């Protein structure tokens, strides 16, 4: 047949998907580790401290040191825990976070330059699988990720863990309805659930979705903070109240997997917010004759990631009942009104 690896690569061949999956896993888990470093640094600067400084230049190798520590720590499983569920709970969090990223496009499609040896000239769509229900899939996967904390808290035979699990349930019941309803209005405008269509819609209209749908944007950000368990809503493992919540009994790499999952979720929410509300990657944005869409979306993602850290340094967090009150009594009616108005506008 004379078929080489290169012929198999474009579009939907299994080799291409496999390579992308490995790339997502490698890059995002590295970025998640790097995210912990960035978080420590940014929080330190906002509190007029230096942050990690001693491992490597400016503390850059601190993630390596942390990684070695996590991998070599003793893995303790409590005697009365449900051992099977205790063991798989961190895997659920980490795995769903990575699976969610498989349907998210980050860069414009591109062609590998000719001068690169074997792969030159291959057209690469920058998404592992362009599902036609992309948004539903990603949000569903991120929601399923909360089974990790829930099962972990319930399986570990620890009272703090139980409280953490209960809070997970509260959080889950609160934000999920807001996430879905807030993003429904943009979906009605675009008429598709695919991220690529969102990007193209904003490109055709020439206006970012956040100016069409400011309410939906704010609601989605709030729900995103709750979904990723970030500071105004970090009820699950707030040290000052419930020791470490669902992660109380975890040690070593099992504990680390929860945090890789959390940071991967932060990246996912940043990517979704950038693509759905802030114009996404736009391959025809030109600067000095180069397409800089990939650079712009990186800046947007970085901005949202920084916003999460900034908020953590600035705001106090709220009680579980306040979160429920906020989501059901304030945000959900707002989202419904927003949908109603959008529907009227679309209909007319």
């Amino acid at each position: 047949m004379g078929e080489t690896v290169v012929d198999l690569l474009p579009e939907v061949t299994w080799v291409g998907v496999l390579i992308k999956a490995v790339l997502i896993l490698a890059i995002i888990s590295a970025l998640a580790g790097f995210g912990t470093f960035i978080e420590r640094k940014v929080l330190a600067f906002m509190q007029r401290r230096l942050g990690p400084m001693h491992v490597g230049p400016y503390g850059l190798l601190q993630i390596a040191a942390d990684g070695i520590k996590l991998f070599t720590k003793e893995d303790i499983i409590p005697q009365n825990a449900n051992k099977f569920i205790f063991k798989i709970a961190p895997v659920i969090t980490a795995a769903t976070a990575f699976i969610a990223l498989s349907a998210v496009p980050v860069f414009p499609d591109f062609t590998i330059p000719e001068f690169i040896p074997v792969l030159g000239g291959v057209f690469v769509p920058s998404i592992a699988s362009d599902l036609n229900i992309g948004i539903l899939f990603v949000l569903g996967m991120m929601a399923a990720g909360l089974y990790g904390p829930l099962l972990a808290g319930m399986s570990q035979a620890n009272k703090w863990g139980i409280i953490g699990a209960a809070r997970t349930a509260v959080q889950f019941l609160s934000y999920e309805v807001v996430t879905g309803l807030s993003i429904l209005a943009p979906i009605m405008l675009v008429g598709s659930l695919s991220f690529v269509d969102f990007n193209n819609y904003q490109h055709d209209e020439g206006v970012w979705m956040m100016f069409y749908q400011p309410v939906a944007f704010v609601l989605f950000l709030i729900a995103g903070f709750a979904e990723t368990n970030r500071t105004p809503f970090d009820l699950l493992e707030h040290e000052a109240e419930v020791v470490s919540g669902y992660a109380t009994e975890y040690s070593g790499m099992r504990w680390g997997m929860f945090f890789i999952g959390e940071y991967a979720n932060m990246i996912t929410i940043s990517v979704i917010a950038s693509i759905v509300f802030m114009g996404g990657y736009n391959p025809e944005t030109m600067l000095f004759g180069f397409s800089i869409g990939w650079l712009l979306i990186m800046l947007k993602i970085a901005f949202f990631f920084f916003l999460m850290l900034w908020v953590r340094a600035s705001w106090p967090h709220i009680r579980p009942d306040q979160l429920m009150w906020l989501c059901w009594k304030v945000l959900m009616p707002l989202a419904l009104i927003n949908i109603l108005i959008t529907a009227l506008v679309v209909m007319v």
Partner: protein
Amino acid sequence: MSLEQFKNRNVGVQNYTTLDVGVSPTTNKAKFVQFITRAVKGELFVGLWVTGKAMFKALFQGDMHTVKYPFEKMPISPRYRAIHDMLRLLESGSYRCIGCGLCEKICISNCISMDTRYDENQRKEVSEYTINFGRCIFCGYCAEVCPELAIVHGPRYENASEQRAGFSLFEDMLTPIDKLNLQQEYDGFGAISPNADENIKQTPLAY
């Protein structure tokens, strides 16, 4: 001044400003109005602005408060009682200790032990002098009682050791003869710290 006056002598003259906490709304309408005003007031962004400004100042205007401890140290107060120093006479370079033994006598934890003898000029000199820092409680009596200002408390506060009994010899605490010009005179127990001017603040009490 009567007793009542004396007790209340500081009350009401300090210009306290009371925080405006407002009134808690009772009716549903008032609650709703309060919610809306708070929601659109932008207080959350004030919080973001404060931390953002702190980060900008820390990064670009040198307002970073971390002291990289082993590499840089804060100035220490002269009142601080750390490891002892043995001082020399600035003119001749010979040590000040006259071997009177007062420090050994007054030491309440019995950690100073010394031995003296007469030298060839029939002057007393110290032949052995050790302080056991495992026992020393750094009370400062030895420095206070010394008639010649020979034993003082120096600025060396990093006194971790491998053993409980950490002895220090006379020669270790003595100012090295080549660093005689760097020898700091002991300011005494009432002295102020070298950065006292920076730390000074107006007293909040109006007497």
